[in-house]
């Protein structure tokens, strides 16, 4: 016990000063060695972290909670199903008779319905909990760090949204293993609280469903020795979603992404990224998805907190061979985010799905958003969508409360 305490120099200083006083030295003499008030406080705090039971809290992971509450109004119900059939597991539609056996009661069916839209807007008007996320993050040891993110979409159940371990001590490269968002473009890697708009782009929702490409797999990210920032990602996924669910044992999905960023000036950057993922689908034929994204960011270094502009466009296309035919669908979005005051953002987005084509016709959406963020940890966002599909206009209006409690790692640039 004593040797353990004496290892700490500060502790030693404190013990020594007590002993000096006890042995009858005058305070003036002891003064030279007596620790300051701050030192004493620090010492008390460090002692307090080891409780009587011997369990320390000092190594607990940082814990953060994100909540998204939603008020929603739509002129008529709107469902965006995935273009290639349902995803496995909980995203199955409840009206499929052959899968009805999985649902014991009404409650389950309701959950499934809620869940399918957890990352986007609900089908019908009302108040809802869009999602609550609990995030644990910590370094594991001198070689690894880990992130575990549990999501509660709606109010009914909890799921592992991401859970992965990553190397920290290798030069130039990071290896990752676990369940994580695939590096397929810009939007796919975002958690719902970090979406630029309340709902995801149509292309992401229609190609991969609400969850996006989020799979169990392995990944490597490497910083390339170039004169500008350039990073290459290689990832391998087990393939459990509708696009890559081949029954073959060795049928993985393979992803590559090349990401580049240039400093245009001290205040602006331009980034371009290209992604490609391929693997076998349930027909044991090839599915390929490719994407390309370009982002311009401007933020004056002298007024970092008060002004900012983001212009971003992303295109994604999937080609699915079902053994008879190759189905090809793709979509594009372009968005603008402008911060015009410390707490205010004005945003606009244009979405089109069905490029090069979609039967019977393309889907369009125009969105506008106004955000008020009193601090980094809370925001109130109001969004309007004008959807155009099947020769019909659907108006959607949403209000979102977005908050963060506890530790939250800084968002990537």
């Amino acid at each position: 016990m004593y040797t353990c305490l004496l290892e700490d120099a500060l502790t030693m200083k404190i013990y020594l000063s007590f002993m000096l006083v006890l042995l009858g030295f005058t305070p003036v003499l002891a003064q030279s060695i007596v620790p300051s008030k701050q030192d004493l406080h620090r010492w008390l705090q460090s002692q307090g972290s080891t409780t009587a039971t011997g369990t320390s809290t000092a190594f607990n992971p940082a814990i953060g909670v994100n909540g998204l509450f939603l008020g929603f109004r739509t002129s008529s119900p709107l469902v965006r199903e995935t273009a290639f059939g349902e995803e496995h597991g909980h995203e199955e539609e409840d009206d499929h008779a052959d899968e009805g056996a999985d649902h014991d009661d009404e409650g389950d069916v309701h959950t499934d319905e809620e869940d399918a839209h957890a990352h986007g807007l609900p089908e019908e008007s009302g108040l809802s909990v869009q999602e609550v996320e609990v995030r644990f993050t910590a370094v594991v040891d001198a070689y690894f760090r880990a992130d575990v993110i549990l999501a509660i979409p709606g109010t009914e159940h909890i799921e592992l949204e991401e859970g992965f371990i990553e190397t920290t001590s290798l030069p130039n490269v990071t290896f990752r293993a676990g369940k994580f968002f695939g590096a397929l473009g810009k939007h796919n890697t975002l958690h719902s609280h970090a979406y630029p708009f309340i709902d995801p782009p149509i292309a992401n929702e229609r190609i991969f469903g609400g969850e996006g490409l989020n799979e169990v797999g392995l990944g490597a990210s490497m910083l390339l020795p170039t004169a500008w920032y350039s990073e290459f990602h290689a990832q391998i996924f087990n393939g459990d979603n509708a696009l890559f669910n081949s029954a073959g044992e060795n049928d993985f999905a393979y992803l590559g992404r090349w990401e580049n960023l240039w400093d245009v000036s001290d205040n602006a950057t331009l980034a371009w990224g290209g992604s490609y993922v391929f693997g076998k689908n349930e027909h044991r034929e090839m599915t390929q998805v490719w994407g390309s994204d370009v982002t311009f960011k401007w933020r004056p270094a002298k007024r970092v907190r008060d002004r900012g502009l983001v212009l971003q466009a992303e295109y994604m296309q999937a080609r699915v061979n079902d053994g008879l035919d190759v189905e090809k669908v793709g979509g594009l979005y372009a968005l603008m985010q402008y911060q015009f005051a410390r707490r205010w953002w004005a945003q606009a987005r244009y979405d089109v799905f069905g490029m090069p084509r979609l039967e019977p016709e393309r889907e369009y959406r125009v969105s506008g958003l106004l955000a008020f963020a009193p601090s980094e940890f809370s925001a109130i966002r109001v969004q309007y969508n004008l959807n155009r599909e099947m020769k019909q206009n659907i108006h959607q209006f949403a209000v979102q409360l977005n908050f963060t409690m506890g530790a939250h790692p800084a968002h990537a640039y």
Partner: protein
Amino acid sequence: MKHILYWMLLFVWVGQVEVEAKINVVTTTTDLAAIVKEIGGEEVSVQAIAKGYQDPHYVQAKPSYMRVMNRADLLVYVGLELEVGWLPLLIQGARNPQIMPGAVGHLDASVGVRRLDVPTGGVDRSMGDVHPEGNPHYWRG
């Protein structure tokens, strides 16, 4: 599975290429850069991430800084959570074992500094932007 292994080996191998004559130092602020230059003289080349006119609390964690830190032999930062909003992301993204916490090239300038304004009692975010580990603006003293 075999070709996965080959890929990994290739990544590690390509990652080894590195030659530098001067000691490459990256600091978070220009104040620290000036001190490093004073001490290191001709032996060092120094680069500060935040510009002199910039508020070091709010620096954008641009990936281009990761590239700079990837090539650093030494990282010097103010500490006491001044750079907490962006530096951890850059260290993580830099993939440079020399500047990882605990490594030789990781220098927290606040170690040994007599801390002022360390909050006694609990802190929470209703108090605004508090520094729970004490006032990080010690270099002004």
